[in-house]
């Protein structure tokens, strides 16, 4: 079994079978992360480069751990320490890295399409670790993994994605993946945060959170970019929290046993009440834990090491 592709840039072109393969591959690595010695030699002698043009702790650390647990050599590049500040283009930077025989480049960039542009220009495999508002495929895959781990079946699963969908790469990747697997995706937020035609991607649009939560088994909260206040997307954080913040009361509107997810970092008291974030229904830390296993699976599949 293999993915039969050089790069993982977005979930839009993947088939349901591709997604299932990734999740199944992650299963075996999840087992590894539970061992006392959390390391396998699968990628020994391979080089993984984390090329992060945007600040990120969680995703970068997760990829770094994943690569190390596969015994790969890992290099971290970040813009402040690289030649990017000297005006080198993304492609030139990547070609230099490639010339040092990097097998896999993990890219985080603030521009939509950066990973795709990079993948066209280098022979190394490219994994998109988030490009602008476009996609964050590995985040969505670890979300799916976490849902599946809770014993929920995707076919007919009702999922509410809540918040600033327009500016969210996590939302886009999840809408694509969940729809492919047969889930019913609801997107919820103020109309100012709904991208044009999102319903045509297969999501149902709600402006009222209470309405949207009825009968869902998964509540996926998005991080509110606080700096967007003052850009006419929402009047105040106070009003946003009142309308779209997930409270314990609201969780009761969902299916009993519904799980609460968040890609992090969370704004306690804004999009999610502290008691919800810390409740039994919250799987936020499981997402983080699963992130390593899922990324191990992806690195393994992309390396062609199988």
């Amino acid at each position, binding site marked *: 079994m293999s993915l039969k592709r050089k790069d993982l840039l977005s979930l*839009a072109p993947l088939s349901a079978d591709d997604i299932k393969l990734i999740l199944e591959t992650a299963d075996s690595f999840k087992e590894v992360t539970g061992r006392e010695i959390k390391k396998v030699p699968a990628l020994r002698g391979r080089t993984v480069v984390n090329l992060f043009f945007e600040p990120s702790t969680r995703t970068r650390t997760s990829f770094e751990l994943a690569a190390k647990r596969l015994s790969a050599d890992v290099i971290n590049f970040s813009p402040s320490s690289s030649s990017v500040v000297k005006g080198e*283009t*993304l*492609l030139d930077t990547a070609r230099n890295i490639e010339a040092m025989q990097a097998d896999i480049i993990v890219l985080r*960039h603030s*521009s*939509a*399409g*950066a990973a*795709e*542009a990079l993948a066209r220009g280098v022979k190394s495999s490219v994994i998109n670790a988030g*490009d*602008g*508002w*476009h*996609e964050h495929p590995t985040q969505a895959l670890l979300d799916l993994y976490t849902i599946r781990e809770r014993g929920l079946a995707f076919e007919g699963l009702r999922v509410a994605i809540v918040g600033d969908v327009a500016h969210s*790469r996590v939302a*886009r990747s999840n809408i694509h993946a969940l729809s492919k697997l047969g889930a019913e995706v609801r997107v919820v937020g103020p109309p100012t945060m709904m*991208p*044009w*035609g*999102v319903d*045509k*991607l297969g999501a149902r649009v709600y402006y009222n959170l209470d309405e949207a939560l009825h009968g869902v088994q998964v509540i996926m909260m998005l991080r509110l970019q606080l700096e967007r206040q003052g850009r006419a997307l929402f009047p105040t954080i106070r009003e946003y929290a009142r309308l779209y913040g997930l409270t314990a009361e609201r969780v009761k509107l969902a299916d009993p046993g519904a799980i609460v997810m968040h890609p992090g970092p969370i704004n306690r008291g804004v999009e999610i009440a502290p008691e919800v974030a810390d409740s039994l229904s919250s799987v936020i830390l499981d997402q983080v834990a699963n992130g390593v296993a899922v990324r191990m699976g992806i690195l393994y599949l992309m390396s062609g090491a199988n």
Partner: protein
Amino acid sequence: MAILIQGGHIIDPGRFNAVGDLLIDRGKVAAVGPDIKAPAGATKISAKGRLVVPGFVDLHVHFREPGFEYKETIQSGAASAVAGGFTTVCCMPNTNPVNDNQAITEFMLERARAAGLANVLPIGAITKGSEGKELAEIGDLRRAGCVAISDDGKPVMNSLVMRRAMEYALAFDVPVVDHCEDLHLAEGGCMNEGLISTELGLPGIPAAAEDVMVARNVSLAELTGARLHLAHISTAGSVRMVREAKSRGIKVTAEACPHHFTLTEEVVRGFNTLAKMNPPLRTWNDVQAIKEGLRDGTIDVIATDHAPHASQEKQQGFTEAPFGIVGLETALPLTLALVDEGILSVEAAIGKLTTAPAKAFSLSKGTLAVGADADVAILDPQAQWEVDPSKFRSKSRNTPFAGWKVKGAVLTTIVAGRIVFEAPVVA
């Protein structure tokens, strides 16, 4: 000195449309008609099966000099123009420094004379530095040779400033050209706002960003009586409003670019920076509306918005890459495609590239009338060729049409009675 072009199908839109001969003498059109005798020593060009038309007039090019000579110079831009059949081009003022004063205009005209290829006519800025605040010295610009005024690329957002510019322009009978875009609505956008921008996660520019400014400009033209020319309209809404404005007798002309009637936003998929321009490529519906506007005369002019950029600039990410594509060397076949589609007659298509733009800016160009400057293009409307950017005369290669198989080629371009371009003979 004399040139006799024999046996071609001569189209001088609105004046002459028949097979005949064209005699050029001392830089002027000397005679048009059947069986003209060649004066002694005249160069004879056989044009059997060819079209003989006025050299094209492009109201909208960016030649980047002064300031961005690595993208294009007046020399390379003019070479690109004549290779595309254009004998007169109007240069937008967004150079560095901005063409907002007589000295820059004179510099551009001097460079154009040195190039000696096409008629290069500068367009002056509306406001100082194109900052949208204070009026530029429009009287000086006009006197120095500017044929219109525009803050292209940096639309005048302040409606009062735009009103005053239109009023002031009346004194010089100079057309006011606006790139219609509400910068607040368009903020940060880099492609048309719609399903594709949603899928790609790219910030969108809604059609409304153009429409609201077209509405404003039409209202101000009505208020002031100024001559308004709308650059590169791209939306169905713009076409509708211009049609309505014309029906009410408002002095407005409009141009469309070949890419806006040939391509849709679909081409952006894959984050193709060669499909990034402003206004952005729109939807199929908009393309249909543009074509209908060209057909019914709502859109007077076809202009290229020739916007050269260096390869390293277009190789950046989609959001960082600059807007714009080169257009001078692909305009003819893309325009003739409208003839094949049945939208325009050949004469109407040629008119959009010659008579109509000349009229919009009151240029004594775009005609083969006896006594006119002998600016002529000889075309093979049936010649098929493949667009190969490496062969462009332009310094830049940024076109989304690379590899397209197109029909209609420029064979010879004549400016003021001098042959300035001859297509290389293909073995």
